[in-house]
């Protein structure tokens, strides 16, 4: 007998978890290539470190929990978590930052809750927030776009920097890194500067941060492809980006010299990654389509609030984790009307 099914239905559709994870990973490729081009080799080292840590950590916990290791690793969820975290972290980060973040994401945020399907929080974002709170300096020092750098690092030099935090003689950290646009905006606004003044800095591009807007565009491309492949539905991205843009528009309209406009918000930081890849995580998000819309709107609102009035430069990770906590409640209140119940017939 070729199949394990003992009662109907005896046939099955094409969907499976591994395939879903693969498609999401493919959708990240344009952004990874973009990062290589714009921010140098860092992303590659981040990815290798994160994926190996994730696989090792997951395998170790599974073995300790006496669960099948190989079959579970094949679901691809650990690799995907590692990829999402690697993309979110600064491309010029020390190796231990990546390893700690990934290990925490897999061991604490995922496996200790029971593994894939049981984690209430998005593991990648839990790892990200741990790092952001514990190592704020490393987390906010972002690689400058290669075009803006006064010096450049080779793959070997980047690896050396990651492992030893030593830069080649003659290159200073300032030459290759810079604050992010969101960070700069927050700091400068706090110092009483107005928007038009701040945005004249070279780290700003047409829409958002220089380079960042391209990455966000590439992530959007991947996200649209996921929509087309029906891996995700439009509810979370539209809810999140819509509410973020709406809030930004409203406040920008009130005071254009203090509040950045909607396009800046959409093209900066992790807006697109959050909308298409993070908040769409089925495990930690809302289930029903209506619930997903509410979930997305919540993430968008919180992101805007944290970005505008919070003390952290980007609010996606916090917004997602906060909404993760609300997901069961959202699901409870967005239950569909069951056929034949409480309806005039």
């Amino acid at each position, binding site marked *: 007998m070729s199949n394990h099914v003992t009662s109907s*239905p005896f046939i099955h559709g094409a969907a499976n*978890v591994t395939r879903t994870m693969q498609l999401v990973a493919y959708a990240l490729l344009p952004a990874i290539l973009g990062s290589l081009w714009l921010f140098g080799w860092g992303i590659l080292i981040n990815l290798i470190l994160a994926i190996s840590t994730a696989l090792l950590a997951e395998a170790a916990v599974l073995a300790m929990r006496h669960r099948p290791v190989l079959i579970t690793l094949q679901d691809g969820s650990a690799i995907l978590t590692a990829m999402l975290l690697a993309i979110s972290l600064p491309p010029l980060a020390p190796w231990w930052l990546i390893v700690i973040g990934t290990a925490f994401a897999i061991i604490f945020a995922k496996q200790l809750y029971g593994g894939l399907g049981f984690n209430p929080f998005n593991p990648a974002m839990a790892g990200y927030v741990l790092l952001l709170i514990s190592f704020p300096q490393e987390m906010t020092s972002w690689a400058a776009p290669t075009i803006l750098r006064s010096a450049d690092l080779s793959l070997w030099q980047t690896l050396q920097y990651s492992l030893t935090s030593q830069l080649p003689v003659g290159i200073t950290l300032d030459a290759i890194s810079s604050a992010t646009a969101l960070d700069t905006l927050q700091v400068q606004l706090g110092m009483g500067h107005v928007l038009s003044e701040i945005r004249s800095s070279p780290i700003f591009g047409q829409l958002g941060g220089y380079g960042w807007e391209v990455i966000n565009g590439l992530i959007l491309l991947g996200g649209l492809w996921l929509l087309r492949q029906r891996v995700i539905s439009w509810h979370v991205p539209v809810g999140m980006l819509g509410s973020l843009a709406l809030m930004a528009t409203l406040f920008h309209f009130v005071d254009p010299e203090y509040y950045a406009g909607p396009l800046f918000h959409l093209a900066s930081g992790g807006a697109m990654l959050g909308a298409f890849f993070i908040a769409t995580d089925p495990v930690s998000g809302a289930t029903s389509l209506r619930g997903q819309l509410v979930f997305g709107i919540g993430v968008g609102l919180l992101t805007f609030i944290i970005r505008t009035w919070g003390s952290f430069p980007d609010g996606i990770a916090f917004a997602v984790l906060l909404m993760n906590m609300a997901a069961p409640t959202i699901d409870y209140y967005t239950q569909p009307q069951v*056929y034949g119940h409480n309806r005039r017939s």
Partner: protein
Amino acid sequence: MSRAALSNSATQKLWRFHGGLHLPDQKSLSCEQSIEQAILPKRLVLPLQQHIGAAAKPIVKIGDHVCKGQMIAQPDGYVSAALHAPSSGTVAAIAELPIPHPSGLKATCIVIDTDGEDRWIERQTHGNWASINPSELRNIIRDAGIVGLGGAGFPSFIKLNPGARTEVDTLILNAAECEPYITCDDRLIRERVTEVIAGARIMRHALHARRTVIGIEDNKPEAYAALQAALARLKHVPIEVVQVPTLYPTGGEKQLIKILTSKEVPSQGLPIDINIVCHNVATAAAVHRAVELGEPLISRIVTVTGHGVHTPRNLETLIGTPITDLLEQCGGTTKDLSRLLLGGPMMGVTLSDHNLPITKTGNCVLALTPNEFGPQGSVRNCIRCGECARVCPVSLLPQQMYWHARAKDFDKVQDYHLFDCIECGCCAYVCPSNLPLVQYYRFAKTAIWSQAREKQKSELARDRHDFRIARQEREKAERAARLAKKKAALEDKSAGTDDKAKKDAIKAAMERAKVKREATKVAPKNTDNLSADQQRQIDEANARRAAAEQDGEKKS
């Protein structure tokens, strides 16, 4: 009825039910095969229960000769159905035999050895059904043993009896046939459309239905055309034919009602609660045969298909025919046959034994080969993707039901309306984690049913226990009362007799005993005729004993 009311789906507004699936329909395997007569088997096995309700009661004995169409078991109660001999022959056995059931159960069956003559009983035809009153029509249909041929097998005459005060707004004839592979209704309509329509008219008459609609999926254009052509020929027959989009499970009664009328059957209710009655087209044809030709339900069309048989076919099959015979007539099974099903791939049951008989509800024998199951990945944890809820035609939350069924939290799983689940299998079909969701729901339903039964039983036991305690206490009280009464009576008696007489009697008895003791008193034999020496020794011993006794008395 005006011409405007006549059949046209272009003018019919349709509604949608939630969810549903587009499945690879696989109907082309068998849909071009015209209906053939299945070869008369040597032996027919007829389970007494082929329907919902009570099993029929046999009215033949082993050794009886029966004619084709003769009733061999009668309905036992209202919700039950009669059984007829599908061919002439001899009753060989009435015994417990395996029946087509998911758990491979055995049940009482009547076994008929056919004589090959296929001789009919005298058939009573009613060509003038329009002049027969509905009640009498229902009796004819009941006596013909007709049950729903679409799958559930509910006795049809009950569904044709709306009750005196209920008006039937719409009679729906279900020709959706939404499960993949199955084509028996398609072939029936294509080849015997007049029978279907004749049956529909009789049903309409029995129900006084205001409107009659035949709903058919748009993947059967030939059958649709046949229906339209037949209705056009008849003229002025107020039956509409409506093409509905192909979407599994459109053939579900509740789903088809929603599509055609926008109405929803209330939860735990019946279509008649919203003035709708729904019958399968094959049932309509059977009604026509029973009423107009006097033929009870003794055969049905069975689709034998799947890549596991050499030549898929539609066979007009006598009820009770062994499935092996049907497979043989279709060229036998292939070497790579992996699983044999009765019914479709979404809702059918596995056949443990190829020798099981076809029953009234057996619409399809499906022989599946390994590559027909679709991708079979390993079972993983639920990732809460919600795909199951999106395809559920009842708008349930299969995922939540799964969590609670898994945790055996049966109250919670009922809060999520477990008993509204129609087990169509859409959720399990799309589940990326390959979870056997429907199996969990069946498990939960069975567990809840048995809990309810246990509860009933324990309530009964508790009642019995309480009663026993009450009885024991009552008996104790009665006994105590009796005793007290007796005692009182005794005391009365003793108070009344002479005390002295009693004492005298005792004294006399004591005297008698004393005399008797004296008379029987004899000295121990070994102390007779003692010598002086012996006597002296005894005296000494006695003296010692007396001294010791005295000593002991002093000490103490």
